[in-house]
């Protein structure tokens, strides 16, 4: 670029744009570790959304960890908590999408793994909300209620 001995205007402009992009991207600004943390936030939110939405079916499922914890009346708790768990799933998905949106403004963008997690969790949520009877039947069959 500097072969001709003249500083390149394009180069200067490109560097400015890159610097602006990096400035607008807080998770990339501080280095690789933070960028990894950003991906984990997206993935964590996605996995959290899946987990929360699956717990909405937990009203009636003998979840092993609940038994281990010895929480009495857990089924009643989960039945009552269903609306909150559904809300939590939607909020976590929102967090995931925000993380990806923020990542898209960065030079490297969010990782494919984080996007894949988000897509899977979104699809899980859609299926759970639109076809709860299908999911309930699948769970019932898995738990031994197959006809």
């Amino acid at each position, binding site marked *: 670029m500097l072969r001709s001995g003249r500083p390149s205007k394009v180069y200067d402009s490109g560097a400015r744009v890159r610097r602006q992009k990096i400035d607008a991207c807080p998770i990339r600004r501080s280095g690789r570790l933070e960028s990894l943390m950003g991906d984990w936030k997206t993935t964590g939110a996605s996995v959290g959304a899946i987990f929360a939405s699956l717990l909405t079916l937990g009203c009636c499922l003998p979840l092993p960890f609940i038994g281990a914890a010895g929480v009495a009346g857990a089924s009643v708790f989960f039945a009552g908590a269903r609306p909150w768990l559904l809300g939590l799933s939607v909020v976590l998905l929102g967090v995931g999408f925000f993380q990806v949106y923020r990542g898209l403004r960065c030079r490297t963008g969010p990782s494919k793994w984080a996007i894949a997690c988000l897509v899977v969790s979104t*699809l899980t949520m859609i299926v759970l909300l639109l076809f*709860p009877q299908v999911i309930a039947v699948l769970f*019932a069959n898995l738990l031994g209620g197959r006809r």
Partner: protein
Amino acid sequence: MNKRLSLIAALSIVVLLTVGWHFYRGKTVPAGQPALLSLTAQNFDELRKAFNASAGDVRVVLLLSPTCPTCLRGSAAVENVLKQNSNPHLRVFAIWEAMLPTDYARPGTLVLGRLSDPRVAQYWDKNHLFALELARKLRSDADHPQPGCCTRDGVHWDEIIVYDQDARWDAQLPRAAYVEGPVVDNAPELSEVMARLLSI
């Protein structure tokens, strides 16, 4: 990249809707059963008439939620009990209730098909009309058998209620011979109660 993602998302939604349509097409009950009736305050009397029309038979009422896996396991357990007892003097009224936030739709073919015996009649009781009637009876009759489980906000669900041949539903529900829940855990006992009543 964005175009590709949008395409994948659109395709996924189309696939999901297709799968959903496949499972939800119609709310058809299995062959030999009367059509699914959605109970309202206006037509609730039809359930009472159907109940009284089968006087002389042992009648079993099931209160279930269509998106509760445990209730669905209960429906499969009752189906197995019915397979083991082919007595024609037996009627089952399966009442699907809206108990959970995901119970926003009437039970679909997939759910209704879990009780395929022709002695079963299935109902969708969004407003818990039968459960409230049962609660009234349980409150007013101190000697009535009481279920050990299951109510939510005072509404009974995931329960089996068995009425003998002489039971008649007039102003109030008759006294039940047996009331218990959850259905899946009490199916063996249901089998015994049915056999005992049918042998009388």
